């Protein structure tokens, strides 16, 4: 059975700066069909995965992601997400997702007040998602962060809900996999680096998997996130194909 190429749309807001990296990894490294979607487009078109990339949409004016949420394309992104479409928000994309109400909580200023830009380790807390199915639970991924506002916060009830529902997908940890305060780069509650929504189709993460996917950059752990999403879509295609094949026999 031939594998159909997955269609990946990368939204470009004014001020996005990881859009081309995400597009490059999707197309050149992963070999899928990728296209950039300008934020003024009213529709995301026919795509299987939407990426909200990192950057400084609208110059981070007012709050990170606060204005991007009102971009024309976001209405269709919300519709797509509510219909079960895969949406991943990376860094600024994560901030946009919380502002748009697709993910709970908020990203506060780093507790150090400093922009944090470095490689660090993430522990995969939930490998049973559409974004981490190519990882193992407890596996460590080395993926860089680059943000000034990545300090995840939510009220205690929301946090309890996230923990109880297994919605915390990644936590910052040291190189031995220990989740410690020293390994927390920004002050995030419970070292949270990435969360998923209740229906499992929207993920937000502060670290940049697209910056750790090209072998030329040495680190390739980020590829596993792309592989997981692609695997999820392709397995759906295969299921449909096999059903069609069964019928035509």
């Amino acid at each position, binding site marked *: 059975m031939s594998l159909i190429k997955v269609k990946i749309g990368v939204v470009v807001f004014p001020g996005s700066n990881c859009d081309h990296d995400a597009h490059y990894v999707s197309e050149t490294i992963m070999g899928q069909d990728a296209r950039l979607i300008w934020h003024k487009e009213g529709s995301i078109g026919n795509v299987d995965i939407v990426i909200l990339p990192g950057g400084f949409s609208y110059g981070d004016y007012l709050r990170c992601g606060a204005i991007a949420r009102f971009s024309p394309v976001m209405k269709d992104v919300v519709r797509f997400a509510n219909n079960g479409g895969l949406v991943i928000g990376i860094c600024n994309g994560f901030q946009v997702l919380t502002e748009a109400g697709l993910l709970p909580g908020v990203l506060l200023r780093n507790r150090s*007040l400093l922009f944090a830009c470095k490689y660090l380790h993430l522990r995969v807390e939930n490998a049973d998602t559409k974004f981490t199915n190519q990882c193992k639970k407890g596996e460590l991924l080395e993926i860089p962060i680059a943000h000034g506002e990545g300090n995840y916060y939510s009220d205690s009830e929301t946090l309890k809900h996230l923990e109880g529902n297994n919605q915390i997908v990644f936590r910052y940890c040291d190189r031995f996999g220990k989740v410690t305060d020293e390994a927390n780069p920004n002050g995030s509650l419970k070292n949270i680096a990435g969360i998923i929504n209740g229906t499992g189709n929207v993920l937000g993460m502060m670290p940049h998997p697209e910056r750790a996917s090209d072998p030329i950059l040495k680190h390739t752990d980020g590829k596993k996130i792309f592989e997981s999403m692609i695997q999820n879509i392709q397995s759906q295609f295969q299921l449909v194909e096999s059903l069609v094949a069964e019928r035509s026999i």
Partner: protein
Amino acid sequence: MFHSKVYVTLKKSILDPQGKAVEQGIHSLGFESVENVRIGKYIEMDVDANSQNEAERITKEISEKLLANLVMESFTSTTERIKE
């Protein structure tokens, strides 16, 4: 025409490291008696409305939906009539 002023600050329950840093600066300046420094945002705008009530309602809605993120921030606002 009305003029609204909106003040947005981090909720009390949320640590304000920027405020803390400024507080240290104030102490270094010699004002040891100052505490609880919080940094916020100030937004002003003119609102074309038929009544004080309407202008206040519009200001409140904008503040809740855009100017403040109520997960982490709270706001206060004032609205007063200005001459045309």
